[in-house]
């Protein structure tokens, strides 16, 4: 019994010394949607690197499933831990409202990402505006098509607000700047389904011989359309643009069936969490016209900072993106 006690005591002492606390450092806890997926692994790398650079204690908390209830619990624990900043990428903005307000009441500053106008947040930052993101894709497609011919638009579903906002911006941009380009049909809500995207693209190519471009917003749309183009051996004649997971689309990008697209960089988002927190901790609240690392020159609207820090996915950048595990 005595021996067990002494072992237990020794073990706990060892644990104690290994977790010496950093009392004076700014403590930043970032709660993300779910832990262990490539997107948030990249974000964690960003948080860690930037924290080391700025000499603060930044860390990420990744719940085991995308259940908003788990995010509430993680935030409650961060409040108990008396962190200085809480960063959140919300699964559900409404669920987090009360607990974020509780954090603010405890004197903790809250920074959110991908959740504009979040109640309970001191600051929110977005690395892509709906308009900028849509227009970037519209411009890319128009340039590839040489400003003429017809094109079709896929979205994840007609009820996904973000996808449709992107599509609106892209179509408006093309209409205004490239009047010779023609939109085929209405937009098709197939872009979260690989097979549906592929078959819709095949049908559209058969029905419209002058079709020269696809723009797809939704995780599987660009891949599906790219496969259709590859099957018909139309690469170089029909162009496919849209945001997609680099790892999944690497092969199609290299063969030329998939032209490219834009995304924002989760690693950069992780860095911005830490940079913003560090600045606010030093009493430099973000102001219009300032240039911040990772965000560029900012013009906050209320407490929301929206910038267009887009990352191009194309033949040149694909290997680097894939090696980041994205």
């Amino acid at each position: 019994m005595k021996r067990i006690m002494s072992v237990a005591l020794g073990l706990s002492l060892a644990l104690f010394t290994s977790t010496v606390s950093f009392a004076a450092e700014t403590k930043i806890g970032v709660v993300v949607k779910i832990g262990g997926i490539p997107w948030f692994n990249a974000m964690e790398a960003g948080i860690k690197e930037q924290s080391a650079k700025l000499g603060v204690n930044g860390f990420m908390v990744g719940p085991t499933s995308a259940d908003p209830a788990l995010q509430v619990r993680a935030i409650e624990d961060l409040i108990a831990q008396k962190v200085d900043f809480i960063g959140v990428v919300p699964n559900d903005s409404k669920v987090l409202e009360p607990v974020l307000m509780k954090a603010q009441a405890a004197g903790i500053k809250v920074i959110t990402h991908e959740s504009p106008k979040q109640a309970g947040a001191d600051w929110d930052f977005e690395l892509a505006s709906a308009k900028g993101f849509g227009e970037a894709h519209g411009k890319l497609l128009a340039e590839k098509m040489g400003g003429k011919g017809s094109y079709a638009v896929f979205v994840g579903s007609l009820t996904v607000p973000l996808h449709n906002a992107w599509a609106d911006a892209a179509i408006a941009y093309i209409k205004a700047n490239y009047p010779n380009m023609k939109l085929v049909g209405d937009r098709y809500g197939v872009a979260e389904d690989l097979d549906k995207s592929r078959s819709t693209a095949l049908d559209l190519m058969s029905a419209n011989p002058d079709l020269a471009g696809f723009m797809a917003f939704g995780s599987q749309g660009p891949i599906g359309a790219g496969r259709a183009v590859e099957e018909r051996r139309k690469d170089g004649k029909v162009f496919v643009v849209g945001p997609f997971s680099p790892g999944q689309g690497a092969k199609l990008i290299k063969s030329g069936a998939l032209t490219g697209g834009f995304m924002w960089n989760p690693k950069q988002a992780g860095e911005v969490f830490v940079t913003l927190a560090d600045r606010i901790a030093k009493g430099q609240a973000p102001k219009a016209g300032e240039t911040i690392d990772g965000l560029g020159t900012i013009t906050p609207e209320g407490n929301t900072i929206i910038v267009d820090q887009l990352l191009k996915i194309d033949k040149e950048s694909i290997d680097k993106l894939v090696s980041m595990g994205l």
Partner: protein
Amino acid sequence: MKTFVQKFNATFGADMGGPVIAFIAVMLIFGLAADNFLSFGTFGSVAFQLPELGLLTLAMLLPLLTGGINLSITFTANLSGLAAAWVLQAHGGADAPLSAFVFACVAALVTGAAAGALTGAAIAYTRAHPILVTLSMMIFLRGLGEFLTRGGDVSGFPAYVAPIGHGSFLGLPIPLLIFLVCVAVWHVLLTRSKLGFGLLMIGSNMDAADYSGLNTRKIVVLVYTLSGIMCAVAGIIMLARFNSVRVGHGESYLLITVLAAFLGGVNPFGGFGRVLPVFVALVVLQLLSSGLNLMGANQHLATALWGVLMIVVMAARTLASHYRIFTRKKA
């Protein structure tokens, strides 16, 4: 040592041993390892997080004691929450008067009770295994909820609802107080009522209970109805805590409630188990998860450690019962 064990068993019951030892171990290890663990903040955090999981565990407990299981608890809770949310919406949303909220709570409780009664009747009259029946019920309720809400969430509640999830009364979190009341009710129900006695008998041996003249069907229906009502209470707390209702809220709690009940010494085959050890087990699980968060450990590690804790406690329990038999033989 031996007299201490006997004394402990006499005062708290033998099934309290596992959870209490785990409790002391967790307090000691985290108290020493994380300098900010033994603070008011930590216990505040634990006290606010405990109730939603705790209420669902209570809802799981009664069916487990009858040798069954209720897999539909989280969806029953959310559907009850939805019923309450709709009543509030129908009476003006954020401006709904207090009377509307009372009515909303009644609607939630009735929804929970109805879902529970339906499950109970299906189990009692078809004699199908509770896993099958409640699994079907879970899929049905989930589908129904998703159909009615189109997978979205319902929100916009009056300001006085929020304190039920986040407020304090006399320094104690209101959700914790509600949870403690429910624990007390369940304790009295199991130890002092005819229904409590009957459901434990059913858990021990359904046929023997039947032949002894117990109306087993009625008891099974009642047990699942009560489980549904407890789900509704959890649903109301979740509505207030999450400021919205969605079918998927708290989905991840389902299996943890089973874990908490078994950790609290409930016999997996039914018939034996008490409320208080389960309560202590819940506190231990929450302390473990909050403590690991406090130390900045990975969340996936916390899940793994819950599993390890479970295995260790079960092994310890087996060893203890062997030890008991061994000493008895000697004497």
